Structure formats: C-alpha cells, structure tokens
C-alpha cells in the first residue's frame, strides 16, 4: 500500500477531485496548508507598511492506495492539477505499513 500526498493549487482541487472520482478513487483527505518552493510569495500593504508573505496557500491531498493504482492516480493528478505555471505543486509517494478501518477492525487493502 502507498500514500500519495499531493500539494496543489487550491483552485485546482475540484478538477483533481472530479478526475479522481471518475477513475474510481473513493476517498481522500485534504487540508489547507501553506508553504513555498520556487514560487515566490506576495506583497501585502497595510497603511503604507509592506509585508512580503512567503507562505503561499495550498491544498494538500492524502490518498491511500493499493500499489497497483498508484501510477494511474499520480498521472491523473499531474494532468488535472497542471496549469503549466510555477507553483503547481508536488506529489510524494510513500509506503504505508498498515491500514485499519476503525468501525470493523479490518486490516490491509480491505480497509482502504
């Protein structure tokens, strides 16, 4: 099992979710995060004082998948979250040791 963690532009979330739904991904967890990479932040002005805000708002998706689904899901995210401009985000894939469904106690891929 793998965890796919994708950091994307917030306004792309609906596109990504729809594309993943269409290919049969049944669940995901998202959070509003802030961070920066190559994309610069923005400037804010309050009463003449300028602040550079480095941390740019992003959305992080976390999806747990069976190994066989990973490549397809990554491709779909890359396609649906892409704008071609700097700041489109990153995807991390990491191994997951165990998944347990709280309600039934099922373990492994049955619990995904």
């Amino acid at each position, binding site marked *: 099992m793998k965890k796919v963690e994708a950091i994307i532009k917030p306004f792309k979330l609906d596109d990504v979710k729809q594309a993943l739904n269409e290919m049969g991904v049944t669940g995901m967890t998202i959070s509003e995060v802030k961070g920066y990479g190559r994309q610069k932040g923005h400037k*804010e*002005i309050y*009463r*003449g*004082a300028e602040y550079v*805000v480095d941390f740019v708002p992003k959305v992080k998706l976390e999806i747990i998948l069976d190994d066989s689904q990973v490549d397809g899901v990554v491709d779909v995210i890359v396609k649906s979250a892409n704008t071609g401009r700097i700041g489109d985000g990153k995807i991390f894939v990491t191994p997951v040791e165990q998944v347990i469904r709280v309600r039934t106690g099922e373990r492994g891929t049955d619990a995904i």
Partner: protein
Amino acid sequence: MNSGDIAWMLAATALVMFMTPGLALFYGGLVRKKNVLATIMHSFISLGIISILWVLYGYSLAFGTDVGGFVGGLNYLGLKGVGLEAGPYSDTIPHILFAAFQLMFAIITPALITGAFAERMKFKAYLIFTIAWTTLVYFPVCHWVWGGGWLGEMGALDFAGGTVIHINSGVAALACALFLGKRLGYGTNAIAPHNVPMTVLGAGILWFGWFGFNAGSALAADESAAMALFVTQIAAGAGAVAWIIGEWLYQGKPTTLGAASGAVAGLVGITPAAGFVGPMGALVIGIGAGIICYFAVVAKNRLGYDDALDVVGIHGIGGLWGALATGLFATAAIGGVDGLFYGNPAQFGVQALGAVVTIIFSFGVTAAILKVIDLTVGLRATPEEENMGLDLSEHSEVGYTW
C-alpha cells in the same frame, strides 16, 4: 427648555456613545488574532471606568466653576446640583443631559490612546494609566477649551474637540509609543491586521456616531447643527478618497484599510471646524486630512517608533491639521468668527497657540504618568505574555475558537 433641543441631544449622546464600541472594532481588527479581545477591552471598559470617574469628580474638574483658567472647581462633586434644570452651558437642555453628552467625549478620548500601546501593555497598567490620564490631562484640557478655561476665553475655536480630544490623545499616544518601546518582532516579523472587515465596520460605526459628535456639539437642534452634520459627511468622504489616491500614487494600490483610515482622518480633521466652516472648506479639510495623515503614517514606518495602530498619525496629526485649518477656513457667516482666509489672521495664531500648549502639556504629563506606573506596577507585559497574546495572558480567553 426646548423639546427639540432636548430630543436631538438625547439622540446625539447615544450616537457618541456608539463610537466607542465602534473604535473597539476599528482597533480590534488591526491587531493580531491573539490580541483582539485585549484590544477591544481597552476601548469597551472605558465606557465603565470613565462613567464612574465622571459622576464622582470628572464632570466637576472639567466643567465646575473655573479655578485660575486651568481646571474646574469641586462644586459639582458627585454631580451635586447638576440636575433637571438648565446649566451654565446651555439654556435649552437639562444640565444633566449636557453632562451625559460630555461624558461620551471623556470616554472615547483615553480609548483612542490605547491604539498606541496595543498588543503589549499589561491590563493593570492600562487601568491605572486611563484613570490617571483622564484625571490629570483630559479633565483640565477639556476645561481649558469648553469649561470656561483660558483657551476658550482667548477665543480658540474647537467645535467638537480637535484639540481637546484628537491632538490631546494623539500626543499622549506618541509618549506611550516612545515610552513602551516596540512590540516584539516589530520591523522583522510581519505584524499585520487580522481582520480588516472588522476594522472597516468599526470605521463605519465611528462615521455614523460622528454625526452626533459634531452636530451634537451645537448643543441644539439648530442651523449650526445642520451645517456641522453636512460638513462632517463631506470631510469624511473626501478623506477616504484622498488617502486611497495618495497610496495608489505612492505605493501602487488603493487599499480598503486606507479608505477606512482616510475617512477617520477626514472626520478628525473636520471635528474642530464643524460649525465654523462651509462645505468647500470641509472639502479642503477632508482632502488635506486624508493626504497628510497618509504620509504621517508612512513617515512612522520610516521613523521606526511603534505607534501600533497609528493614533499619532491619524488623531495627532489630523487633529493638528484640523485645529490649524479651522483658523484658516472659519467664516463668520457660519460660526460667527472669521479665519485667516476671511481676513482674520489673529485667529490662526490663537489656534496654533492652543495646539502647541496642548501638545506640551499632554506630552509632559503623559510621560510622567507612564514613568510612575513603570516604576511601580510596570507597564509592559513580559515577553512570554506578549508572545502568547494578551487575550490569554491578561484575560484568560480567546477571541476565536478555530
């Protein structure tokens, strides 16, 4: 007695009262989330503290029988003799109504200062400061201008408190900012407003209440009140537009906070002049206030003193501009006195003198009060408390649970 005057002054008193919670929101939105309640509290609790002082001795020190032109006597202690009959300040409304109207001014003035020491003053120190400052600075200066003191006798024009309220609080704010020092992280960390919509709402409430503040200062439902109300609107609107044009040209973007700040600057500017100037004078005063206060605030960022919410730039500088502009644009056709542009340069001199003496007195006494508090209970929250936020450290509560 005149029932029209009484009706208007009852309403105007309530309007001015509403300005203080408006100020609480105006300031509350400008601080960081962790200090929103402590900042709101500084304004809100003034409604309580000053009401008590006013009944006990405040009204007497401000409006009691004149003692040497400097302060009121003790003849109205406990509001003795201040009742349903007309008092010495108006023939057409009950004395107690005049006292109520003036109370609202005494409440908002120390609340204005709190913007200078926002996010770092201990609550206990704030309480002592507010009581001491209102007693030793506000009551005397109020007496000088409105209570039969030397400035009013000399002919200084201050319709609704440009000198008494705005220069006075702005200068005290400068003393506070210099004395308390900068907030932790000022100049290195981003210390940005946490809720500009709250601030704009507060500015709207201030604007609304200011009609009572300025037009109520006529103390009657009369022609002077009508003109005061109109010029209040013109100056506020012109101030908002002038500020955003200033920042648009200078920094590239017109900001919502700039519009709100400019409106308040325009209102401050017109305060002493309402009742003495006409609409065109108000237009110039409002535009001037918006531009001058904007650049005063920009200058603060360069000078590096941490007047957290720009009390000096908006109330001090705006009040000074208004006091001087009153000496320029006053016209006998409206308020019975001419200013420099209507052939009476002496009036400008009187206005300037009133401003200078108030600046010196307010700064000196405020600094002395701060020094005494610092040596006894201490002024500043500890660095741990400041980092945690005053909402938790001073009040054990938080503004937002998310």
